[in-house]
């Protein structure tokens, strides 16, 4: 559009004038674009004749949002971006002395997570805490774990995997089926699910050894679908689309979370509540996440981790340095898959019910989006992205008040993909390498120095 005008320094007055002009223009464009889509709605009556009715109110809302958005963009956001860019250009490359808070931010975050359930319970009571611990706590942490697992494959080894949800499914069904057929407990099946998923990771790894980039992505996509279709069609074992229900819960060192005399509540003389199980699950997934992070950090410093990162850049160079690229790829696939499997069996224990519907391609896409948004390879960035994305989705569910604007049929959570898309566009404009684009080097002689991504052009973003 008229963005070229930006190059000339605008005074405050002319800026507002320009903004109004652009806002009007945007409004007219929006009106033209949405007149037929939003402005009218067609339906059928009982005799199958189409009836058309107008929706001027909704159309007006769309136009207003676009116009106001453009106005704000021109008056506030663009000058801000420009100032940021200039500030960045002006700043000499300097070692930023990290503040105390910044240095220890991860420790703070961990402490906050540990105290999250008790604080919520003391604020809202056991019953009221359910929503916060479950929807905002467990749900987010599951995605953190999945994204960290996928990060090993995509972020570190650079193997684009669009079928990651398959391993999540393998883990979930491993627990669901083995516990209902053989009565094995969660703690036995958690490692087994991980191992089975890792095994399937290898199965996927073998045929794609020679593939890279687009071709690899397509095969992994197909793999994810195959697993899902098998789950749907192997009805004798998996019960198809009905799914597996009444999956046993996890226990705390053998203490079940139920109303039985030796259940958790009776044992500690507490009133019965489902919140205990949720809080227990919260800490369980927190521990699983921490294990994932710890393993990832350790692996990065080990030969196999270095090999992953090198593999991502140049396969031939890797081989000529004595790296076995076959095992390197297979370990990336299987270790990534293993964490997906852990998360899957946790998911099954939490839901008590699994069906193929939970493992659609969209899930893979969401997990991948979180990894990319976070900045491939960065654990912190990915955690932030998972909180924003998953938390954002959950928040949408809470936005009942939007019904006042958009009518009673409006279901905000259906717009989560819109939110995702929007967030991706915004993040990619502001931070093209994700929330945390800098990569921590793993080799030092003397002092540590982060190598910022912002000074470099190359890369595969």
């Amino acid at each position, binding site marked *: 559009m008229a963005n070229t005008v930006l190059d000339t320094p605008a005074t405050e007055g002319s800026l507002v004038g320009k903004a109004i002009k652009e806002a009007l223009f945007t409004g007219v464009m929006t009106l033209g674009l949405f007149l037929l889509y939003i402005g009218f709605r067609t339906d059928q009556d009982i005799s199958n004749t189409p009836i058309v009715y107008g929706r001027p109110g909704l159309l007006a809302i769309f136009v207003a949002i676009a116009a106001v958005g453009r106005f704000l963009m021109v008056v506030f956001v663009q000058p801000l971006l420009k100032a940021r860019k200039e500030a960045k250009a002006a700043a000499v490359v300097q070692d930023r002395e990290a503040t105390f808070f910044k240095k220890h931010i991860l420790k703070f975050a961990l402490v906050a997570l540990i105290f999250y359930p008790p604080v919520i319970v003391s604020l809202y009571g056991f019953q009221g805490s359910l929503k916060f611990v479950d929807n905002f706590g467990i749900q987010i942490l599951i995605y953190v774990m999945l994204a960290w697992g996928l990060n090993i494959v995509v972020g570190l080894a650079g193997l684009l995997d669009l079928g990651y949800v398959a391993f999540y499914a393998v883990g979930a069904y491993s627990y669901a089926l083995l516990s209902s057929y053989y009565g094995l407990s969660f703690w036995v099946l958690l490692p087994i699910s991980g191992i089975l998923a890792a095994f399937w990771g290898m199965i996927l790894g073998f045929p794609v050894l020679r593939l890279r980039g687009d071709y690899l992505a397509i095969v992994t996509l197909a793999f994810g679908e195959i697993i899902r279709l098998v789950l749907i069609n192997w009805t004798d074992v998996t019960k198809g689309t009905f799914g597996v229900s009444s999956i046993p819960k996890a226990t705390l060192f053998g203490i079940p979370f139920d109303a039985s005399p030796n259940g958790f509540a009776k044992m500690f003389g507490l009133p019965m509540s489902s919140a205990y199980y949720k809080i227990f699950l919260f800490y369980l997934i927190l521990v699983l996440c921490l294990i994932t992070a710890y393993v990832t950090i350790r692996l990065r410093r080990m030969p196999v981790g*270095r090999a992953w990162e090198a593999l991502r850049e140049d396969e*031939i160079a890797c081989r000529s340095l004595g790296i076995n690229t076959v095992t390197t790829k297979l370990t990336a696939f299987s270790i990534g898959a293993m964490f997906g499997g852990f998360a899957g069996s946790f998911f099954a224990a939490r839901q008590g019910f699994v069906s193929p519907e939970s493992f659609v391609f969209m899930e893979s896409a969401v997990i991948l989006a979180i990894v990319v948004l976070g900045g491939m390879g960065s654990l912190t960035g990915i955690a932030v992205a998972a909180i924003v994305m998953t938390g954002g989705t959950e928040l949408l569910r809470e936005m009942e008040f939007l019904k006042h604007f958009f009518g009673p049929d409006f279901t905000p959570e259906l717009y989560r993909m819109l939110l995702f898309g929007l967030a991706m566009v915004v993040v990619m404009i502001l931070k093209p390498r994700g929330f945390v684009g800098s990569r921590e080097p793993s080799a030092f002689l003397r002092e540590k120095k982060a190598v910022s991504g912002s000074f470099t052009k190359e*890369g595969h973003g």
Partner: protein
Amino acid sequence: MSETLLKVEGVETYYGNIRALGGVDVEVKKGEIVSLIGANGAGKSTLMMTICGAPQARSGSIIFDGTDITRMPTHLIARMRIAQSPEGRRIFGRMTVLENLQMGAGLDNLKYFKEDVERIFEMFPRLKERQSQRGGTLSGGEQQMLSIGRALMARPKLLLLDEPSLGLAPLIVKGIFEAIKKLNQEEGLTVFLVEQNAFAALKLSDRAYVMVNGKVTMTGSGRELLANPEVRAAYLEGGHH
């Protein structure tokens, strides 16, 4: 004469149906510097890569240190201590200089990492200054130094260099050639190098091969080839296009 380290016999390499090497015989003895010169597209880089097993030779044999490596996978060949600074450098762009060097030292599990890095930094002080810079942002010449340094980190028995002088200022080229000579004389490192800079390469080398269209057409000591009128005409006097 000392014993043979690398023996290439009747090697033929194909890219699909195109024959890039048509029966090449090359021998490199322990402690020698041997160079390979030839026009663009003669097959020099192909020979270097074939020694490393990527691509593999279709026929003929490659014996290294008494072991037949013709059909060995590349990573195992590398573990026999053949290190290459390949054409196009192939350094890891997102990794720092130090990490690149670390990748080179992977064979010994970083046992000699510290001392070897110091040695490389002594040879290329520029790399020391830039040790925490990303490989991809180095200048072309710095990348070349890094590529050679990374190969040396593997403590190779045989060092393959594909056009080490490419893109470097004459003074740096001189430095690199001196460094190669020094490694050769002081540590007995065996070097097989490809060079467009035929004059410098022939002066440096004990022996040399001339390659034309995938075949070795001439061989002799560096001094002999320098004096050879055919070589002079093709690669020395007329060589500066």
